[in-house]
Every structure is written in C-alpha cells, then in structure tokens.
C-alpha cells in the first residue's frame, strides 16, 4: 500500500535517524512510502501548553495534508495520540464540529509504527538483528492513549540476538510531559531520577521506546549522570540488520 509518513517536528529536527529507519522498514515490507514536505507539527505542544487556538489551526493544517492519504504511519506514540484523541477533544471544546468529523475520519488510517507492524505483520520479512541487552519503556501516550500497553515489547522479543530484560515499574511516567519538564522541572527531575535508576539496575546497554521525546529526556538524564545505558527508538532497532 501507499503510506504517507508522518515524521514529527522533533524527529525531523533532532532525530532524523528514526525517520530514515521508519522509511527503510516500510519499504522492506513492500510498501510505497511518501513524504509530504508540507508537514510541520500536529500541534501537540501548543495544545498541551494551553495554546488552544494555535493548536487547532495546526490540527486543521495537519488534516489538510493527510486526509486524502490511504494510510499514515508515524514513529511517535504521542503525536499519533494527539491526532487520534486530542483533535476531537479540541473540536469539542470549541464546538468545531467540522474538526471533530475530519479527525474521526482518520480512524483506521493512522498508525504508530509498532501498531502498524503488529496489525499487518512482517517481522519475518524484516528479520531484525540487534545483538544487545535491551529493556523497553512503554511511553505513556502509546501505552495508554493508544492502548498499546506493552505490545511493542512483543516485537523486541522477536529481534535476533537481542537479550530482552523487562523494566521494573515500567508503567511509571519518565517525567517528560513536554512543557511539564520546563514548568515543573524539579518534579520532572525526581520522576526522571527514578526512571533512570530502574533502567540502570538492569545492567542493559539500551532502553528502547516508541517516542523520541521521552527518550530525549531519559537519555539526557542517563548521560548527565554518566550512566552506561543508551536510548534508542524502536524503529532503529527494527531496522537493524545482521552484517552480511
């Protein structure tokens, strides 16, 4: 099928490798991948920070770009959750029935990457290889708003060479929360400290997640303390191949 990539603004600017890996994965699965350069941001940052009017304009702009797509895939649980859940909510707040209807039409067309693979299969085709000791942090929006729970873990457990260790207290938020980490940086740092401790206790090389925003925060906490584990997006693990 033809898949429109939804590469989030953060991924575009700071984590292009995740978008590259997502492209590779979808193409290896036999899909035709397109990227519309008109895309910017889905408005999550504005919406979660209380800039509702601006967020709605960005949401409508997002819909202008994507609503004719057959299928859309994004390597970000929180941005997919913003489109799937918050567009409709914001439409309800402002009695914008047009936005509610347009957002509802995205149901069944927009997927987070791991959600897409879990639904349509293809791990046998990808046959990823990542010979490292790895844990998984279920990011809040992916796990709760998208209802993925810890299902992306299932994909990691199928990766060749990967030694999977389950994270304790895994449902605990890492403390990022966008502007929360700025406005309430002390509380956010206390949450981050606990998350980093549970990761370090496992003696792993990598902590994997489906959101680079959370990984930026966790990775920043680990590096600040000079800890060993690194962070990596699930897409990059799934795109890894055994050297030929």
């Amino acid at each position: 099928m033809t898949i429109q990539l939804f590469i989030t603004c953060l991924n575009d600017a700071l984590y292009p490798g995740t978008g590259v890996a997502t492209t590779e994965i979808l193409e290896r699965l036999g899909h035709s991948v397109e990227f519309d350069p008109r895309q910017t941001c889905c408005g999550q940052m504005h919406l979660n920070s209380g800039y509702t009017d601006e967020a709605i304009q960005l949401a409508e702009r997002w819909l202008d770009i994507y609503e004719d797509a057959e299928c859309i895939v994004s390597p970000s649980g929180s941005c997919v959750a913003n489109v799937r859940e918050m567009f409709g909510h914001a439409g309800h707040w402002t009695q914008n029935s047009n936005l509610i209807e347009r957002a509802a039409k995205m149901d069944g067309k927009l997927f987070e990457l791991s959600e897409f693979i879990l639904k349509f299969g293809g791990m046998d085709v990808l046959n990823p290889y990542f010979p490292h000791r790895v844990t998984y942090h279920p990011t809040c929006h992916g796990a709760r708003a998208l209802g993925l729970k810890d299902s992306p873990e299932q994909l990691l457990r199928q990766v060749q060479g990967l030694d999977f260790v389950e994270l304790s207290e895994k449902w605990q938020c890492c403390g990022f929360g966008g502007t929360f980490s700025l406005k309430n940086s002390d509380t956010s740092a206390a949450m981050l400290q606990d998350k980093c401790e549970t990761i370090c206790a496992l003696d792993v090389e990598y902590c994997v997640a489906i959101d680079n925003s959370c990984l930026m925060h966790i990775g920043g906490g680990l590096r600040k303390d000079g800890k060993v584990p690194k962070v990596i997006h699930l897409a990059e693990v799934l795109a890894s191949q055994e050297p030929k």
Partner: protein
Amino acid sequence: MSGGGIRPSMSFSDAARETLKNRTLRHNLGFATRTICSKREKVVAEIADWEQTRTAGSMLKDEALANLEENLLILEEKVVAAGGKVHWAATATQAVEIVAMIAKSHQVSKVVKVKSITSDEIELNDGLAAQGITALETDLAELICQLADDSPSHILVPAIHKNRDEIRALFEAKLGVRAETSEPAALAEIARTHLRQKFLEAKMAVSGANFAVAETGCIGVVESEGNGRMCLTLPEVLVTIMGIEKVLPKWEDVATLMRLLPRSSTAERMNPYTSIWTGVTPGDGPQEFHLILLDNGRTTVLADAVGRQTLRCIRCSACLNVCPVYQRTGGHAYGSVYPGPIGAILTPQLLGMEHKNANTLPFASSMCGACYEACPVKINIPEVLAYLRGKTAKNPAESSAFRAAFWMMSDHRRFSAALKGRRLGVSIVSGLGLVKGWTDSREMPEVPAESFRTWWSKRGQ
C-alpha cells in the same frame, strides 16, 4: 490548622520544590501509594466487568448531574418529609454560618466530626473556632493531622505523609500518653481510648456525605473505622454538609457506586462501615437532622460542558495513588484539600480560573494518563487538564515563544528553512539550555548534521 481549605498560597512549582526536599515524605508516600496501588489492582482484577461498571458509573453520574436541580428538589422534599431540615449554602462562609448557628441554638461548644473533605473545603474547623466552637476530628488520620496542626495531604488517607514513628511521637507529646511501640494496633488503641470519652460527651456531630439518594431522601457515609458511625448515632443533633454533586436519583444507583468506590479507594471489596440514614427516628439516634447543600462554585463547574465531568468524582482517591507527580510531591504541594490529579482540575474550577496559584495546578501533570485509567467514573482528567491550561493567563515571554513557534510551524516554507542548516535543532537545544532546571538534571541531545526532510530530498535526487 487541620481544616485545610482550597486556596493555594503559592504556585505548584514553588510548593513542590519545598516538598520534594523532604526525603522522609517521599519515602512514606512512595511506600504507601505503591502498597495501595498493588492491592487495588488485585481487587479490581476480580471484577470481570470492571470496564462496564466504570461506564455505568460514569453514565449514572452524568445523568444525575444533567438533572441536578430536579434531583436536589426531590431530595429536599424527602428529607423534610422524614423530619430533617434542609439548608442551601451558596458559599463556604454561608455553610459555616449555618453550622455555627445550629450549634449555638443548642448551646453546644464542642462538636465531633466524621471525616469530611467537604468540611475541610469550607474550612469549617477554623470557622467554628472563630465563634468559640471546637470541632474535634474523630477519624484517626484526621485526628493525627489536627493534633499535629497539619493539613491533610490525601483525600482518603489524610496523614499519608507521616510514618508510624512520627505518629507515636505526636501522640506522646499531645495526648500525654506513653506508647509502648509504634505498631498500628497500639497507636489505634491510644486514639480509641482518647476518642471514646469524646463520643459519649458530644451533643452534636458534623458529617459529610458520600452520596444522597433523591427518591428515598437518605444520606450515606462509608468509612473504615466505625468512628463515623459513633458520630452519626450517639449525638442528639446531626449536621451533614454535602456538595450538591453527590445526589443520586435512585436507590439502585448506590449499588453501582458501591461496586466502584471501596475497590478504587481502600482497595477493599467492601468498606467495613456503611451508614445510611433517613431524616430522624423518634427515640433512636439523633433527634434533629440538618442537611446543608453546598454549592461553593459547583454550579459554575456544572455549566462548563468540558469541565462538568469533574463533578462525577466520588472522592475515591485512586487518581492520587497512581499519579507519579503526587507520589513525589505529596498532597501539600497542591495547596488544597483536593490534591493530586482530581485536585489539579477541581480546585481551579471551584475557585474560578483567575486564581493565580490555583491556575498553576493544571500544569502539575506530565499528562501520563494513569489517573484517567484508574478513575472509576472515567473522568478524562488529562483532557480537562489540557482544556483548563487553555483558560489560564499566560506569561508574556512564554506566549511570545509559542507564537513564534506557531508562526514557523504554520507555513512549511518557514519550517523547512528553519530546519536547513540545523537551525531549528540548534534552537530547540539551546532553548532547553537556557532553562537551568532542564540542564541541571539532563544533558542536551546532539544536533544532527541534517534534518529528515533534507535526507529525504537528497534521496530523491
């Protein structure tokens, strides 16, 4: 000050900075909330149709709220018919005045209290004290807070921030007794002995209400210790202060509520004491019953199509226990008797969105959604938080940054230009670098040599 009240005296971030320093508090809270959460998960898992019950609970509360005025008028009629008196209080001050007036009419200078967060909301204890009336808390944890001159930090477990050694020392200092150990049973025994005499002396009691049923005119209180039942049955005069959102239309609604409440709050299948009364019964129990129906901002919340769901709350406190922010900052950081996620949406709405400290509460959340998942009546707390954030006054420097980001993101040519030459990446990273709180605990990400869209465009060539 065991009353509490709902007006935060400082911003959440300032208050949290103070409470985060208290390592004992963080330890006590972490231990207590983890224990309650794991027990709760087990008892919730026992109910096969938990999700359907949650839906039923949220629907019945919505229906009750949709016909609130009618339900309250029926309740009034039934309570009066059963020999009770009904008072309508638009504000906290009016409610306190009504209680004081009733006490004075009976020449009562001491009242015993059933644990009631609504009474804490209106600062009843301080209000009565100003009129020479002493209000004595009889719930163990409320008593601990009152003796310590401390305010509650949790809806259900008001003294959750204290450990047993601290409580033992407090009892020894304030009650003049020697505690042999810090075992909960020994401490409870000290409180029991202290309280027994108070129950026997009390002529008037004040309670809150977990629910009221319009069609039967009955009021219900659920509790664990039995101290509430002592207050509800021994004194001659009983005054109940109830938030107007607590009324249910039908008796059968109680069944649904009681499936949801104990499991969500104390992680029990059923709470030990459920007391339900209807008016007065000659020769049995209080001979005078007053019901105060408290608004105090609730009708304003009800009028808001999005915020209204907040009034579904049955005060179970499940959202507090699962909240990663509450778990670390404790309840006092919220500056209100309604702490945690529910407090973060209820307090600013009750006070009005212009209260400058209360308006920092909707930001006291990482939006992780654990509260929504735990809420037995499905209040979408993250949604209401985001909605309320939109109603708060913005700091000018922050506003201009968000406007600039919007200006760039609302046009892909501007956005693409900013991504070229790593300008956007560098500005995000340097922006974070300017925020000391961020860089104290986290290292900046590295800025990549090229953006995704640059990679994509090169690839196509």
